[in-house]
């Protein structure tokens, strides 16, 4: 059987978007470093983080996606992201309602690119609302290692200025409880929407 070219193209979109998140310092380096995807025929296995088993299986034959994560809040956010891409999803739980991940149906050649793009959010989910400002605050940049470039600083400053707006969206989505991962969902969604514009500025 031949590799599905749509799956390969979708992977490349994810590759590019994860690079953007990384440049914007939305990933911890340890989480970014292991990101990788292998494709065979109509199937893909995507490593989305540093924890063992933090990965996703996409199967275009069965039109399914399985996202594995033991953090219940991240699963809730990822479910929302994946449903935004047109999938029907359920959160998987084990004994004692232990979080196991998210399973979805409805993956097809038309939406697989958007589905892959959503996976870029899975790697950033360690960002907590409280950390958000600290991460992009020049006063604490020493904690994060290298000095961000002027463009990255400029984009980050813009996003910091939009915190209220992001919070408002978040509050309206969650009925008044903007828990950390809901905030992350809103932030990552916003970056995905602005991907091309942000790239143009970073590549100038």
């Amino acid at each position, binding site marked *: 059987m*031949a*590799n599905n070219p749509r*799956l*390969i193209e979708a*992977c*490349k979109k*994810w*590759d*590019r978007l*994860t*690079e953007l998140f990384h440049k914007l310092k939305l990933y911890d380096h340890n989480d970014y470093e*292991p*990101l*990788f*995807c*292998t*494709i*065979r*025929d109509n199937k893909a*296995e*995507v*490593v989305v983080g540093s924890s063992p*088993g933090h*990965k996703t299986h996409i199967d275009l034959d069965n039109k399914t996606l399985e996202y594995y994560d033991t953090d219940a809040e991240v699963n809730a956010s990822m479910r929302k992201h994946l449903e935004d891409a047109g999938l029907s999803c359920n959160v998987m739980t084990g004994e004692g309602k232990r979080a196991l991940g998210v399973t979805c149906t409805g993956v097809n050649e038309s939406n697989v690119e958007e589905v892959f793009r959503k996976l870029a959010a899975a790697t950033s989910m360690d960002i907590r609302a409280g950390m958000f400002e600290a991460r992009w605050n020049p006063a604490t940049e020493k904690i994060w290692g290298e000095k961000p470039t002027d463009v990255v600083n400029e984009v980050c400053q813009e996003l910091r200025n939009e915190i209220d707006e992001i919070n408002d969206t978040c509050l309206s989505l969650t009925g008044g409880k903007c828990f950390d991962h809901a905030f992350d969902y809103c932030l990552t969604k916003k970056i995905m929407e602005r991907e091309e514009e942000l790239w143009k500025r970073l590549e100038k």
Partner: protein
Amino acid sequence: MEEARKIKFLIEATNRMLQYELNGRELASARNEKVSDEDWTLMYDALSDLRRLSLTLSGREREFTESLEDVLSGFEATVDYCFDDERSECKVLLDPPKKGGSPSPKRITLLYALDDASRRLFGRRCTWLFGEVPNEEYSESAFLNDISSCIHKLAEVLEEKYGSFNMEGKCAWLREE
């Protein structure tokens, strides 16, 4: 190891092995330069990688990788001893590693063992100069040349393991025949 992680690891390990080979050959060709930090760093870095790599391999491939590890460990002391001497003057199969030293059975045995492991895996030895030049003439330069050649053979094994994949960025897909 999960498939995606393993393939990524093998691709990166292969690239590093090819870089070690290149560095090793460059140092080997600088026969009249002094043994320096570069020799030590090359051996230390390659050794660290080989230790991780051997855990992902099995059978004869693992045996060969472990033999390479043993050789690098066994020759590390010669770099310390020869530090600041010309590579061509550092006679690594002698103890002490300089003209007039006695043959070092331990280091000679390690290189024989490496060539034996190579024969079992590839059907031929991986060194070129060991055994071809007298032990008392075999220098740091010759050693770096031989070890580079053996590292290259290992890179070929690794390439075969993931060579069925195309790669672009963080994406790899099965190569179609």
